[in-house]
């Protein structure tokens, strides 16, 4: 098992903020919008350096999406930012008509995604956003795993033409990816090569998968771990190549088991290469208040859960 270490933990939303700061300096067409959550989205440096290119929308997300679509007419690259719940479910129709169907170059950047938002509870913990966004024709869906990768993804989507949903979170997580990485949209990242089971993880679950890989190694199981940071378009080639070697799959995501990464992978497997697949995901339920750690534990999203799923998948082989 390839060794991954870290010296620092940070929230992925800070990676987004850092990416925005650099974009503000490098790309005059980048503009930012926010619906009364500037602090949470770490936008202060961008706003300070580019006051004319920031638009405070107040608590009116539907208007923010429409404004963003309009800003692209004139060549701007709008980054529309708020919590994932308000960036997707609340404004699904606005995104559908004014952004996706109209094919506008809008970047919907969503913090506090998933259950690790923590204490605020289920009203704010969206677990359906990946599903909603990936169902929209033409929408690119990205869920990076740590601070460095979120920063790199933020910068990469500015150079990409088309609507993007970028999902990140609130809790601090280990920084284990390269600070100078080149983020390639739609290209899965091989975390660890193995031969017994393919673990496909996204977002915060990538670190859990790495820990699971180490635990499995102690039991003599050689896990392949792949970071699926881009859920749409999905790197089908990487997925198929991996399962043709290992013969079974585990998907791991901080999302409802319906409609997310797991279902995306299952579609590829059903069509091309039928192998057993086990889901690590929230089992079609809402979340609740609690610390991120306790919630991950209760809703079955830890390294331990990935280990158990890997063993089940291996057992179902043959």
């Amino acid at each position, binding site marked *: 098992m390839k060794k991954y270490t870290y010296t620092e933990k940070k929230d992925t939303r800070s990676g987004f903020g850092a990416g925005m700061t650099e974009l503000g300096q490098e790309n005059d067409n980048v*503009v930012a919008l926010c619906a009364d959550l500037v602090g949470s989205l770490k936008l202060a440096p961008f706003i300070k350096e580019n006051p*004319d*290119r920031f*638009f405070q*929308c*107040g608590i*009116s997300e*539907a*208007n923010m*999406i*429409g*404004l*963003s*679509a*309009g*800003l*692209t*007419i*004139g*060549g*701007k690259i*709008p980054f529309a930012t708020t919590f994932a719940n308000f960036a997707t479910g609340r404004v699904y*129709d*606005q995104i*559908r*008509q*004014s952004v996706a*169907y*109209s*094919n*506008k170059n809008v970047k919907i950047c969503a913090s506090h995604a998933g259950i690790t938002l923590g204490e605020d509870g289920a009203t704010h913990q969206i677990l359906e956003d990946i599903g909603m966004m990936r169902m929209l024709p033409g929408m690119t869906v990205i869920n990076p795993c740590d601070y460095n990768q979120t920063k790199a993804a933020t910068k990469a989507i500015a150079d990409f033409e088309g609507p993007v949903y970028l999902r990140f979170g609130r809790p601090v997580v280990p920084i284990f990816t390269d600070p100078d990485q080149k983020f390639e949209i739609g290209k899965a990242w091989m975390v660890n090569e193995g031969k017994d089971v393919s673990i496909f993880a996204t977002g915060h679950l990538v670190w859990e998968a790495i820990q699971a890989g180490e635990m499995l190694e102690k039991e003599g199981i050689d896990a392949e771990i792949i970071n699926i940071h881009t859920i749409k378009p999905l790197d089908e080639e990487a997925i198929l190549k991996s399962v043709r070697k290992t013969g079974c799959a585990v998907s791991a995501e901080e999302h409802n088991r319906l409609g997310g990464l797991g279902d995306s992978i299952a579609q590829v497997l059903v069509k091309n290469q039928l192998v057993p697949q086990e889901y690590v995901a929230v089992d079609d339920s809402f979340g609740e208040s609690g610390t991120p750690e306790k919630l991950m534990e209760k809703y079955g999203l830890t390294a331990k859960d990935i280990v158990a799923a890997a063993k089940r998948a291996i057992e179902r082989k043959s």
Partner: protein
Amino acid sequence: MEIKELEKIASQVRRDIVRMVHACQSGHPGGSLGCTELLVALYFDQMHLKEQDGEVVFDMNGEGEDLFFLSNGHISPVWYSVLARKGYFPVKELATFRDIDSRLQGHPTTHEGLPGIRIASGSLGQGNSVAMGAALAKRLNKDDHMVYVLMGDGEQQEGQVWEAATFAPHHQIGHLIAFIDLNGQQIDGPTVEVMNNRDLGKKYEAFGWEVMTITQGNDMAEVVKGITEARSKAGHGKPVMVLLETGMGYGVDFMMGSHKWHGVAPNDEQLKVALDQLEETMGDY
């Protein structure tokens, strides 16, 4: 352009509208007929549009020209006719309205690449937000051209409309002229009965808009005068709202003033009656 000339174009546009909805036996003639003077006046007289060798040319970004957005996308027939008659696409394409493989979808869209259209609309309440975004892009690009948007009065019942109404004055969007087609009708009946919007002028005033009214929204001279006045009020850091009083179905006697013709197509006999009332001035498609 002379008022008489604009009126002639309006008559042809009305013929196009009723023929289009008759051909596919669907679509929304009522609001389309009511807004004919506005769209003709904007495109043929008031808007500064990009041209090359005397022909209009379209690009998505629309820098260096005025922009128009239609929020109440169901009145697509009037917009399609005006765009075609202005030269954005062949007039004969109007015959494909709402048919399979057409660029003239039931509601306007960029998806099929129809020149003249910059955003999809149809799901109501979104157009003013989009127009404001386009106006902000113009501000950043130091482009002084105007952004126009048309909404319906029934559409004022959508919540997003009021999010937009709050935003524009706060961000001092001055190069924005919004119209509300005040025809007093919506699908289920008169607007005052379905959901009373009360005094939209006072509402927008309270939100910080410069509000004016065109009481004769189907009188070409009054519409031209009204848009000219709106333009003089614009550009001073305050968005302008024009309440445009129109008659739903205006120009076809049996359609006028009733919500029943909001989204119903005329039959063969009704088409004949309608066309007898509308002079063919530019040649039918």
